[in-house]
């Protein structure tokens, strides 16, 4: 073993910076979060009491935590299918070399991706404003509504609004993934399909989609994990309100750990427990997706051959 270590010492040396940085900024925080999750601690004083699994027990009986968890799932289910299907349709259209201005369309759709989330959040707050907001103005002018809609101030409309903004913001990145996936479909496959008079939707459904299925699962995974990381957008648009209506898990964790008011003291230990639980859920999702991707890749090979 030592001989192997010695032989590859330069290789290991090259790995060292990554390991150190990963240790500092990835592994240590994970270990620290697990450690804090087992303590009743505000985070700012020395009164740190070991409570074992106590925080988790409390967490599982906390209806506000479960509501936030459900909202995260609703957000995930609301954004990912929409984002993937719309971007796939756009990718199929824009993948057509004969379509004029496809580069321009791609750029326009990608533009929100490179715009900072906080800027997007603030701009959309203005756009959706019930007072002089252009969206309400348009809906009023068209006679669709008779009174301005308080999109971000009503529990009925806040989640669909934030979901809509999120999908708009990240549509471009999913589009790029789909385009990359579509470009892996060999030209011969298209040519063969044409010879067999398989065109249009049938071509996409029976030929293209099975080939790009492994990519679809990878894109699904990336989109799903992305949809669970919506802290800056929701903070800049709604702060989790009104009355918890847009409080997803990350906002719950942040509010519990730091943001305080009206006599609340931070509960870093409790927030860490929520974070650990949420992390485990995301990790499970990732593992499931990895397994599914592997299986899909195997079946895609069969289609190609």
């Amino acid at each position, binding site marked *: 073993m030592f001989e192997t270590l010695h032989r590859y010492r330069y290789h290991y040396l090259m790995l060292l910076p990554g390991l150190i940085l990963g240790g500092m900024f990835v592994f240590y925080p994970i270990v620290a979060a697990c450690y804090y999750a087992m303590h009743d601690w505000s*985070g*700012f*004083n*020395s009164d740190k009491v070991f409570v074992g699994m106590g925080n988790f027990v409390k967490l599982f009986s906390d209806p*506000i935590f479960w509501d936030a968890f459900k909202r995260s799932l609703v957000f995930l289910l609301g954004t990912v299918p929409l984002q993937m299907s719309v971007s796939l349709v756009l990718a199929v259209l824009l993948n057509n070399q004969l379509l004029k201005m496809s580069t321009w369309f791609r750029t326009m759709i990608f533009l929100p991706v490179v715009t900072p989330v*906080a800027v997007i959040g*603030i701009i959309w*707050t203005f756009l959706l*404003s*019930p*007072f002089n*907001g252009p969206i309400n103005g348009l809906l009023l002018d068209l006679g669709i509504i008779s009174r*301005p809609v*308080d*999109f*971000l*101030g*009503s*529990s009925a409309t*806040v989640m669909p609004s934030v979901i809509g903004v999120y999908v708009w913001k990240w549509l471009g990145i999913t589009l790029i993934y789909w385009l990359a996936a579509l470009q892996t479909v060999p030209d011969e496959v298209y040519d063969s399909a044409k010879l067999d008079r398989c065109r249009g939707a049938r071509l996409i459904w029976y030929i293209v989609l099975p080939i790009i299925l492994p990519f679809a699962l990878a894109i699904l995974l990336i989109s799903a994990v992305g949809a669970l990381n919506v802290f800056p957008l929701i903070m*800049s*648009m*709604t*702060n989790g*309100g*009104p*009355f*918890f*209506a847009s409080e997803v898990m990350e906002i719950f964790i942040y509010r519990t750990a*730091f*943001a*305080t*008011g*009206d*006599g*609340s*003291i*931070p*509960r870093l230990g409790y927030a860490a427990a929520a974070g650990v639980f949420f992390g485990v859920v995301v990790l499970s999702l990732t593992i499931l997706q990895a397994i599914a991707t592997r299986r899909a890749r195997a079946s895609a090979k069969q289609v190609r051959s």
Partner: protein
Amino acid sequence: MTSRNRSGLSRRAFIQGTTAIVAGTALGAGRSLAQTVPAPINTIAEGTTFRWIDSGDQKAVFYKKFFADYAKDRGVEVVYDALPWNEIAQVVPLGVRNNSAHDVFALPQNVNPADAVAQGWVQPYDDFIPNIDEWKAGFPDGAFLPGINEFDGKTYGLPFTSNKRYGTHLLYNKAYMEAAGYDPEAKPLSWSEFRDASRKITEAGKGRYFGFIIGGSQLGRWSQTIRNMGRMAGASAGGDSVIEADIDFRTGEYVFDSDQYIAAIELLIAMQSDGSVFPGVMSMNAPQARAFMPQGAAGMILQGPWNIGGWEGNNPGFDFGVSSGPVPDEGPVGKLTIGQGALAPNTMWLFKGSELGPIAGDIFHYLGTLEGQTAWANIVGAGDPPIFPAALDGAEMSARSKAILQHFNDAIRVGPNPIVGNAELGKVIGSFQAPEINFARTVQGLVAGELKGVAAEMKGLKDRYNASLDAAFAAAKADGAQVDRSDLVFANWNPDVDFGAADY
């Protein structure tokens, strides 16, 4: 040497910073900013870097000028950081933990002073101000209090601004109000008139402007508004720390389910139903809401005196009036109760790890003299009034500022402060965990229509707060504190008069 100012880049910090800068520029244009740096009271080592952090706003306007002059005069560098409270809540504890905290800091709002002393965050500054007792005697009664800013006979906190202000008085568009047929400066609006004025202004606005606006996504606006309306309607209760807020000291019980609090919430719900509340208030914070006023988009806002200087400076064409918050339709107007003469969030503390106590003492001393207090009043005005009443006499201030400060003197009384009666209550404050669906959220939920049944919800809220308070007492007792809920009862309290040291 130089003075350096930094501020965060968060949206709130940006808004606050911009407001402060613009206000400062405007104030500077219209009013003398003359400040003289007094002779040093301590030997100051040149070339050192002294750091100070607080929540900025209008304080920043004063400090930017003062610290620049001070640094130049003393041959030191002064770094002044103005951060929003949520960032102070992270920066200060981290700094203390890493022994790199600012020399002087404002305590995060969730850290009570007794804890800060017990945890070794701060040090007394008695040794850095010669004849400190004589200096302290210049402050009004109730500025220095054991358990608040004095511990074990030593002085820890600098209480230099007044707590005699409240953040929900009426600011209104004069033209709109006149058209609605009211003159709140001549006679404060009653609750019914407030609702009627809001309706009339909205009708006149025809969708271009509305009667009433509030920063409804900023939760504290809801609790403050209902608390102050309820207390002015006669639900006497404290309003400061968690062992005072909404507690009637005569009984030691919460007043959340009082008729006055319930009626105040129902009034806001009714105004919402009238359609006379600005659309979109639930997704708007306080700075956004108040920014709509000078634009003429809303007729009335219940806010604080810090708007006066900003609007007068930035929007000289905006004709606005200031008056008392809405008063009850009938019966006497209740007084608002404060727990101490000094504004707690502005109280400054000397970091235990700081070796620059002489500089801190030098600056603290100046801020606690009539000269320093007058310089403060000249710049900060009614927004953050100085604690020396005499400083207001000599200060240059607008008529609106003077009128609202006069109103504060009429409307506010110093009430009992339980921690003065029993310093060990600090452990209760440290253990108190407000219910997750707290007062502010409950009011927001009721006005937004997310919660139904005001009376039942407020009763439930009272039960939740009682459970939290009982748990905090139990935790403090388990920690060895000699405390009891009867410590919150002051049977001799008369809400209409100041509660002095002799009354404890």
